[in-house]
């Protein structure tokens, strides 16, 4: 189907579709919640251009995410869609939406504990952070490993409810 300018879905409407595309690694949050979708635009030729940014440079989900986004858009009848990748500014957990943070927490993953702003906040840090347990809220938690099931998470354990949990590291 070729979409004429008048019949085109609006950019906001398309963003709404993408807000339902789950992250393949953490399906509780969408690619919009995570701040992976940087831009949605119709170009002059009537092609839809979605600009995405990779989270971690080696994240194996990056290509799958692009494919899922294209599939979601084509599924709504927009055939001419192009995915662009933008590296700069580098993705940061500061872009995770408030809704995304709530969803992470409800899913059992503690959301990032501070704003990164620029890399210096990470580079100058010296001690592991205090992370609240997403299950019972206790501040008495300990770091088990700096990397969890994916590079973006660390493994923690709650010293009160004794449950292990993932922490989404500030990045």
């Amino acid at each position, binding site marked *: 189907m070729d979409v004429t300018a008048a019949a085109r879905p609006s950019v906001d409407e398309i963003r709404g579709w993408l807000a339902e595309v789950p992250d393949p690694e953490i399906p509780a949050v969408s690619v919009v919640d995570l701040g992976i979708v940087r831009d949605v635009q119709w170009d002059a030729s009537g092609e839809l251009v979605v600009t995405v940014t990779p989270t971690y*440079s080696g994240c194996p989900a990056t290509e799958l995410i692009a494919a899922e986004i294209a599939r979601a858009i084509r599924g709504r009848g927009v055939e001419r869609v192009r995915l662009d990748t933008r*590296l*700069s500014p580098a993705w940061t957990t500061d872009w995770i939406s408030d809704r995304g943070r709530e969803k992470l927490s409800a899913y059992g993953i503690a959301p990032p504990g501070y704003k990164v702003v620029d890399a210096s906040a990470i580079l100058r*840090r010296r001690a592991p952070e205090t992370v609240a347990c997403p299950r019972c809220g206790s501040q008495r938690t300990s770091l088990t490993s700096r990397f969890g099931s994916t590079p973006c998470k660390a*493994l923690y354990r709650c010293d009160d409810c004794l449950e292990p949990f993932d922490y989404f*590291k500030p990045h």
Partner: protein
Amino acid sequence: MGRDDALFQYCLRLGDNALVLAQRLGEWTGKAPIIEEDLATANTALDLIGQARMWLAYAGEIEGSGRGEDELAFLRDVSDFRNVLLVEQANGNFADTIARQFYFDAWNVRALDALSRSRDPRVAEIAAKSVKEAAYHLERSADWVVRLGDGTEESRAKMQAAIDDLWMYTGEFFEADDIDRAVTESGIGFDPAALHAPWLEEVKRVLDDATLSTPAPGYMQRGGKQGVHTEKLGYLLAEMQFLQRAYPGAQW
């Protein structure tokens, strides 16, 4: 030396450091001492593979003869690799792996931080993306140096031995050659010697915390950046490149 020649070689060095170290770390997958470290090692390798892809893809574009990241990774021979000797050294025991990682991470964070201010926008954006990942690698490797160094008698002895054994491969980071000088002059790269003092300060701080002694200055091995490698790299490449060599163009 032309600007593009130097930049091509420079990107190969950065990409090969990440690629070769990632391949080494991958050898631990499935047999690290504990499952958390199995995951952490594999995740570090994954970050480095991602960084290697970005550097080698850019190197291929600069070269302009049609080689992409895959051709550069899988079809170059050992003398065309430009990684420092440190990263190709064998995994050894866990302390050897951690010492190699710690020396590299302490350099890599500073190198990427400097490159994030490069006059070449592509170099700057790759570095800005990678430096945050490298910072987490350094936290982990420094932690382990302290944990093993300030640990049992046996772990301390192994950690000290690893720190001592790999020391002679750390000099290469800080020695400039024509390529380093060319990219420093054009504002693309950094002066390698400028990173030595901050690197040493960090290494010493962590080794002090770990109750280990910092090795004394001594003879340093060199050559990796120019393609003269230890015997270990050929075996690593033989395994890494086997599939593309035996079945050219094979894809998943």
